[in-house]
Every structure is written in C-alpha cells, then in structure tokens.
C-alpha cells in the first residue's frame, strides 16, 4: 500500500523520515535512471584504480601482486557506498584496465582463466558487501552492539579480503603454473600475501573514501570528532612509546615486532574511537611501509606485513567498537528520555481524568441552571436575555467538551472495530477545533469518500490525528492554514495533513512526543506515518490498510 503523497517529493520538499536503520546513510542507493553520474563515477574509479595499482607494484613479489594493495580499499569504498549491484560494472572496468595495461593477456589458450582471475576479487568483494548488509538488515540485528554502525564497515573490510583470498585457492591448486605458484608453500604464501595486501588496503583507504563520499553526497553527518588537547597528548604519548619500544626491540636485534604498535593503536581506538585510531594507523603505516618497499627478503617482508595487518585490524576494530558503543549508549539515553516523557504523560493523563471529573460535577449544575436562566429571561430586556443566552450556550458547549474529553482520556480500552473514516475525521475535528481556533489557524477538510473504512481503535487513532493537527497548528501560529485530505484507495486509506504558514513562526515548546505517539499508534494499526518537510510547509501522511466499505 502506497500513498501518493508519501513517496512523491515535490520540488523543494525533502523527506525527513529517515529509515529506522541509522546506518542507512552508508547504504545510499544507486540513483537509477541517471547514467551520466554513474559513468563519471566509474571513470573516476578507473583512474584511481590505475594509479593505486601502479603504486602497489613497489610491494610486489613472486606469486602475489603486492603486500600493500590500496586498490582494495578503493574498490570496497565504491561497492559499500553504491551497493552490491555495482559489482558487475566495477568488474568490467577492472578487466578493461588490466587488458589495456597488459597485465593479463588479450588472447591465447589461458586468457579466459586470467580474465576470471582479474574479476574474481571484485565478485568476492560484492559478495561480502551483500552478505554483511544482509546480516545487518536482518530483523533483530538492530539491538546487537557488534552490528551497530560503524561495525558493519569494519566487518566487511576484513571479510572481503579474506573471502577474495580464499577464492584464489581453486585456481592456485589447478593451474598454479599460470601465476608461478607451484608448491604448497607457494600457495600459502600467495594467499597470505593477498590477504595482507588487501586488508591493509581496505582498512586504510576505504574509511576516508567513504567519509569523503558521504560529504559530497550531502548525507548529514556529525562530522569529524574534535578531540581535546589532552586526548591528542595522550594519543601521541602512547604512539610514541609504542614506536620507541618497537625501535628498541629492533636495535637489540630482536626483529621487527608488531606487538607494541598493536597495543598502542588498540589503546587509542578503544579510548577515542575510529577516526583517531585510523589517524594512528596512517602514522604507523607511513613510518613502516616505505621500509618494505623495494627489494627486501620476501619472507621477512611477509612477516612484517602480517604484523602490520594485525596492528591495522586491531586498531580499526577497537576504534569501531568504541564508536558502536558510544552509539548504543546514546540510544539508551534517548530511550531513557522517552521513558521519562511517557511517565510524565501518564501522570498528566491521571491528572486530567481527575480534573475532568471534578469539573463535570459543578458543570452539571451550572449547565442546568444556565439553561433555566435562559428560559426564564427570554422575555426580559434584550441585554439580560442576551447575557443569559450566552451563558447557557457556553455552559452547554463546555458540557459537550467535557463529555468528549472524558471519552478521550478515560480508561476506555476499546476493541478494534470497522471505523468509517468520515466518522473518525468528524470526531477529530470536533476535538481539535477549539485548539486550532485558539491558535488562529484555519482547518479545511477536503470532501471525503464516505465509504472508506479502516479497522481501528477509534480513540487511539483520533489521538494520533489530533496530535498531528495540534503540531501543525502550533508550528504555524497566527494565520496558518491546515488542509486535511483523505484519499481512499483499494488497499489503503491515506490521510494527509499539510500546513501552510503565513510566515515563519517560532515553534512553540511542546514535549516533542506528539509525533512519536502518533507514529506508534499508526504503526500499531498496521499503517505508516511519513512526514515531508519543506521551508514553509509540513505534510504528514498516514496510510492505513483499508477494509473496504462499511457493512
């Protein structure tokens, strides 16, 4: 069931109903139907691929391409940002460049195998991205700290290289001669080197690329955290100490040990989060990587890079874990606040029920006497008669209001029943009218289809609608207009409410739970609530499953 107004975004209107997954920002969709930007993106990718590919050559060796492969990060960033559907275009781009650069043969008996070898890592990366996204979007994954953002990116950054490396195994066993991998030792070396090179690439390159991409595509982000000076001093001290310890071990002839650096970056990651951890990793790599470029013993170099990969992985995971925890903590705090507000609402409700009761008693007397007075004074002087009539009218109005309010705030737990939308709108308008008029706002109801019916708890659903009307009125202030339209379709009934403000009014201080309550009620009815916000207008669309015409 889809409501036209909920999906169509008119000019200048942006959707503010962010999907429930907070990591939705990383999952920006392919903008289907726009070929030019996609082509430009692929061209940019091709350029980056070529440059980074050449850069990686310095850390190459027999049986593997490179022990430090930034292309992996470049590729992962694009796949993660655009989604696994981009796997094929990326694979084709990489294949084309490999062919142009002569990295793989254009023809010959073994050409197809070489081609497969060129696209295989891309397919593996696509598969890893798809898998991790599936894992995260599963129902029930939302509450797991290990899957809270940015953990999914950290997971895919590690899973993709490992998967890609493992997928080289069949070819290495079957036609190892093609890549100079003959013995079991060669196979192990090749896979280890492949994994290490890609790991370093994904963990160091993908995060900043994604950050830049998010910035460019205008995804709202909190921006980079600004660490305090004490944090910088602490990080620098830890890193310096780690470097000093590492150098000392080397100087003492104990080889290049990664443990000090590992502890250092894990410390920074756990204490300060992902971005500082990434900065520390870049510093570590900037110092150590040049040492292994060029002609160094392969085994020594592999060992060194394996150590470096462990450092990078540990640092990155520690930082991501810190961020995920911070996010989870913020979520708990938000829920606490909501709970507090719910408690407050409960108290308010109890109070209002008591007040309604206390009022209804004297009001009964007042209404009876006012009417009597009115009847008595019909023939009195014009002045007296008018006053008595006015008092009577107001007392009667107040009585009606109290009766309605009681039904609304009382402990009425009603069962869902077929509810004609026209009835619903009528009672909602009666409830909201005094408030809307007090705010000096006009409420217009478009003609409705009389047959539209939904299965609903009338009181709850009225509350949802009243909340939205109240919000619309408060947001506008004097001279605003609210338009309420109902669109009955075969499967869904769409109730849309839009306000048009005469001028920008300062929003009044509400408790901010009106929309939350409305959303909860609508969702409990199996419907959806979406809000579209523009500069001078807010449009709320409720979509409810229709049950056909009322019996």
């Amino acid at each position, binding site marked *: 069931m889809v409501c036209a107004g909920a999906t169509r975004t008119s000019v200048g209107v942006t959707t503010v109903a962010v999907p429930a997954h907070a990591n939705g920002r990383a999952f920006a969709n392919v903008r289907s139907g726009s070929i030019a930007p996609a082509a430009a993106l692929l061209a940019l990718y091709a350029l980056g691929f070529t440059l980074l590919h050449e850069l990686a050559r310095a850390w190459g060796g027999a049986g593997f391409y490179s022990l430090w492969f930034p292309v992996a990060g470049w590729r992962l960033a694009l796949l993660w940002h655009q989604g696994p559907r981009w796997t094929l275009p990326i694979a084709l781009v990489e294949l084309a460049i490999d062919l142009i650069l002569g990295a793989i043969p254009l023809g010959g008996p073994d050409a197809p195998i070489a081609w497969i070898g060129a696209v295989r890592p891309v397919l593996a990366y696509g598969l890893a991205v798809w898998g991790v996204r599936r894992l995260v979007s599963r129902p029930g994954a939302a509450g797991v700290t290990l899957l809270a953002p940015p953990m999914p990116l950290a997971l895919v950054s590690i899973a993709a290289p490992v998967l890609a490396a493992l997928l080289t195994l069949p070819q290495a066993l079957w036609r190892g001669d093609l890549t100079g991998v003959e013995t079991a030792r060669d196979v192990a070396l090749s896979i280890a080197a492949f994994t290490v090179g890609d790991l370093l690439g994904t963990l160091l390159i993908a995060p900043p690329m994604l950050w830049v991409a998010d910035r460019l595509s205008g995804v709202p982000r909190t921006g980079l955290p600004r660490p305090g000076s004490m944090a910088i001093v602490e990080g620098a001290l830890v890193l310096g100490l780690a470097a000093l310890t590492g150098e000392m071990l080397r100087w003492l002839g104990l080889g290049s040990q990664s443990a000090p650096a590992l502890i250092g970056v894990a410390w920074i990651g756990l204490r300060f989060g992902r971005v500082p951890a990434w900065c520390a990793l870049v510093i570590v790599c900037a110092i150590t990587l040049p040492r292994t470029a060029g002609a160094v013993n392969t085994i020594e170099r592999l060992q060194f890079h394996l150590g470096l990969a462990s450092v990078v992985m540990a640092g990155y995971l520690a930082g991501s874990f810190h961020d995920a925890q911070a996010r989870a903590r913020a979520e708990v705090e938000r829920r606490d606040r909501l709970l507090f507000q719910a408690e407050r609402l409960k108290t308010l409700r109890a109070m209002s029920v008591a007040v309604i*009761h206390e009022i209804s008693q*004297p009001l009964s007397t007042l209404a009876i*006497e006012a009417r009597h007075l009115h009847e008595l004074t019909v023939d009195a002087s014009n002045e007296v008669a008018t006053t008595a009539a006015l008092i009577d009218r107001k007392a009667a109005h107040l009585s009606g209001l109290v009766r309605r309010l009681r039904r609304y705030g009382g402990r009425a737990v009603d069962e869902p029943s077929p509810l004609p939308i026209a009835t619903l709108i009528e009672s909602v308008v009666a409830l909201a009218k005094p408030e809307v008029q007090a705010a000096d706002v006009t409420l217009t109801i478009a003609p409705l289809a009389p047959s539209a019916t939904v299965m609903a708890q009338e009181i709850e659903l009225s509350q949802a609608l009243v909340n939205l009307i109240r919000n619309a009125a408060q947001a506008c202030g004097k001279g605003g207009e609210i338009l309420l339209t109902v669109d009955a379709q075969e499967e869904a009934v769409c109730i849309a409410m839009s306000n048009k403000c005469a001028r920008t009014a300062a929003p009044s201080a509400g408790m901010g739970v009106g929309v939350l309550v409305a959303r909860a009620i609508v969702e409990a009815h199996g419907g959806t609530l979406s809000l579209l916000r523009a500069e001078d207008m807010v449009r709320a669309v409720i979509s409810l499953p229709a049950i056909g015409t009322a019996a």
Partner: protein
Amino acid sequence: MTEVPASLATVYVVDDDHDLGASVARLLRRHGFAAEPFLDPAPLLAVYADVVPTCPAHCIVTDVMMGDIDGFAFADRVRVIDPGVAIIFMTAWPTTANAVDSVRRYGGLDYLEKPIDEDRLVRAVTEGVSWSIRRRSALGRTARLTARERQVFDLLVEGHPNKVVADRLGLSPKTVEDHRAAVLAKTGANGLAGLIALSR
C-alpha cells in the same frame, strides 16, 4: 394505558453533591414532577420504607459514586422494598461495564453521563414514571392471587399450555383450567396476552 399527570408522579433525586441534587430536582419540578432531592441514600431508604404503602415514588434518579452506599447497592435495596419504582443512574465516571450492569443487573432505565443531557433526563424520567405506573397497576392486579394461582400464572405467562402446567404442578388439567379462570377473573385480563402484559 392512560398517562398520569406528571404532577402526581413522585421523583427522588439522590446525589452527594447538594447543589447538583437540588438543581436536578428543581429542573424536574419545572417539568411538573414532584421531585425531592436527597444528599444520601440512607435517609431516603428510611423515608421510603415508611411511605411505601401510601405514597411510593415512581422514579429515583441516583448518582452512582456516593459515600457509604453506592448507587448500585442502593438500587438493589430499593428493589427489595419496592419492585415498582423506575431507577435512573447518573455518573461522572462513566464506564461501559457500569453502563451495561446498570441496565442488566440493577434494572436501571437509563445511565446518564454528567454533565447531564437535560432533554434525555426528562425523557427518561417521563418514561420511568409511566413504566412505574403500569408496573404498579399490574402488581396490584396480581396481588390478590392465591399461592397456587400465582404458580399457575407464572407458568402460563412463560407460554406453557395447560397440560404442561398441570404436569409441572402435579395437578389435573381440569384443576388448572379452574385456576386459570380464577386468575383471569381476579386480574381482569381478557386472555393469555393480557396476562403476559401483566407479568412484564
């Protein structure tokens, strides 16, 4: 059934809010009822017990939530003393459960929500008074039946034929015929339909 002038109809209003009780009583008096407010059901019960033989009330309008005796307990006790009085409940705490109970369990004629809808109150009281008068007359006409005739009457108005009544009571059909004739004579009803109307 002829309408009795409202001025002859006695209505008691029970509410622990003195002003409201008085106001409702005055309202009813304006509509021609002999209405009397009571602050508490207990004194009314005492008064009521005294006047039953001579001047019973036709209708009682009572609040539900009151001090010692609530409206429902009060209705139960009044019913014991006088089965011919109409009872109307009014409340500031309306619930669906109470509304159903007030009519089904406590024989209430209506269940009014405060602030009171005046027209509905007057309609309900008018209806209550005429129901009460009908009920009293029916009760009066069946009062002179003997115990045996009462048994036969009760079974007949349930729709049982003479044979079944005879069977149930262990009498001969001829005896039942005699009792039936006596019942019709005493109540002045002209047939089974009239008897059923009396039992309502």
